[in-house]
């Protein structure tokens, strides 16, 4: 992960993260961004539980282009509040979106058009605050948002970047297609024979993927279908501890700055309490070549 972030996410980059909404949030990648002291990032996403809040608190963020920033346990994002209200640790620019409009902004970039028209946002004051969304003849034009990098956590991926994801996809496809490049972190690295046995389940074209990182638990505390439950207790703890700047800094030191990598992080978590042990496989389908 350290190498992928170092090589492919420069300061000032526009980065899409947390595109599956509540599950599969690439926290390990986010923590590596913090450890490498990335600056001036623009974060793009719908709802990414507390990941955006953590990155804002660490001073990595110049602009938020998202539908929602907080933490799901409690609502309010305390680092987001401090940055927007008091400029702590730095002031941020906010481009408000809705879940629908951020999806369309990414589809616009994916299809290489300047904007897409939509029927959402009519009558909302978001039309006043986001300079990239405007009403034209009774429709709302949503300007394309093109990430430099989209980072996704998935269940399994092969070394060529063919990622298999199951469960709801949120806006992961449009975020990947719109991006200049994609970093995949995954629970399992599998042989190409596995991924290509079911090409319908491959999320994105391999030509977009520049790095595949084997990172078990890389989305903790968010869940992974078939691998990990959501760690409610740890998410609640972040909500409490980030309430004050001092509390956030202590949290950051303990869970990010003093932790060299995800492997070490996972030894600090009660993983047996969140491991999914049941088995509920889908039926195989026939791809016979005749």
């Amino acid at each position, binding site marked *: 992960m350290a190498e992928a972030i170092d090589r492919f996410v420069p300061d000032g980059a526009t980065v899409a993260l947390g595109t599956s909404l509540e599950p599969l949030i690439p926290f390990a990648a986010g923590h590596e961004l913090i450890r490498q002291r990335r600056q001036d990032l623009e974060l793009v996403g719908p709802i990414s539980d507390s990941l955006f809040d953590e990155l804002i608190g660490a001073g990595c963020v110049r602009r938020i282009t998202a539908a929602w920033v907080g933490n799901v346990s409690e609502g309010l994002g305390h680092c987001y509040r401090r940055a927007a209200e008091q400029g702590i640790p730095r002031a941020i620019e906010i481009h408000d*979106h809705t879940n629908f409009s951020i999806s369309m902004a990414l589809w616009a970039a994916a299809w290489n058009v300047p904007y897409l028209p939509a029927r959402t946002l009519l009558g909302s004051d978001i039309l006043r605050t986001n300079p990239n969304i405007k009403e034209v003849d009774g429709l709302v034009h949503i300007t394309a948002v093109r990430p430099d990098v989209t980072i996704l956590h998935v269940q399994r991926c092969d070394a060529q970047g063919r990622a298999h994801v199951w469960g709801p996809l949120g806006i992961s496809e449009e975020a990947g297609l719109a991006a200049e490049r994609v970093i995949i972190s995954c629970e399992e690295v599998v042989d190409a024979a596995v991924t290509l046995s079911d090409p319908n389940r491959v999320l994105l074209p391999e030509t977009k993927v520049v790095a595949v990182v084997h990172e078990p638990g890389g989305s903790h505390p968010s869940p992974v279908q078939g691998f990990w439950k959501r760690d409610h207790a740890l998410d609640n703890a972040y909500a409490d501890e980030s309430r004050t700047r001092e509390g956030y800094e202590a949290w950051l030191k303990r869970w990010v700055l003093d932790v060299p990598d995800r492997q070490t992080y996972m030894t600090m978590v009660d993983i047996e309490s969140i491991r999914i042990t049941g088995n509920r496989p889908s039926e195989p389908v026939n791809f016979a070549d005749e």
Partner: protein
Amino acid sequence: MSDYTDQELMIAVAAREIRDRELVFVGMRLPIVAYAVARNTHAPNARGLFEVGLMRDQPASTYLGTMGDPPNVAGALWATRMSNVMALMAQGMVDLGFIGGAEVDRYGNLNTSYVGLPERPRVKLPGSGGGADIAILSRRWVTLMTHERRRLVERVSFITSPGHGDGSPGWRRRHGLLGGGPAAIITTLCVFRFPLDGGEAYVDTVHPGRTLAEVREATAWDVSFGAAVGETPPPTEPELREIRLRSAVGSR
């Protein structure tokens, strides 16, 4: 009749807003429980839609911290991308949506973005999420809120999710909003409803043990009351059983 909390009453009232066979945009927290209650009592054929990219016809087997938790995916009717779910709503196929809010005003407009000026907010709230989409595109919607003067305000400082705008009749239609707007505001004290063509919220029922004076005191605008303000029916035993089954673990 057993005792129940304000929150349990709100969930039961929210569940009754769901009619059988409806497609409901569920969202997070209390509405997840409300959908389960409705599905297992009076609305056995109601389907739930989740913006993460899911459709279900039965509640998840265990407590959910979020709509994307694995138990909400297992047994789903459809696991898909968010834009597909939004497509159904844009076509007017979502009958009812639930939206959370920090502030609501007398015309049912919701603020989840900024208290104070957006350039220099007094409180930066998390933002729309899918709230504005639901407010604009679902056929009708409901919000749940703690009844406090700082939450039920004369005019919200920022309209994240539009209700009936400036309250003039037909405001939504004139501005091209497809959905019908807010059907109810369910608070810890009462249930507000709205006139058919939009306008100002009025108190329809007051919760058991609460008074009109309490409602007036805890609302920042000069409250209107319906022609015959009734008492909100308390949660039934089956409703309470469903609610308690699903909100015990990890809720806050």
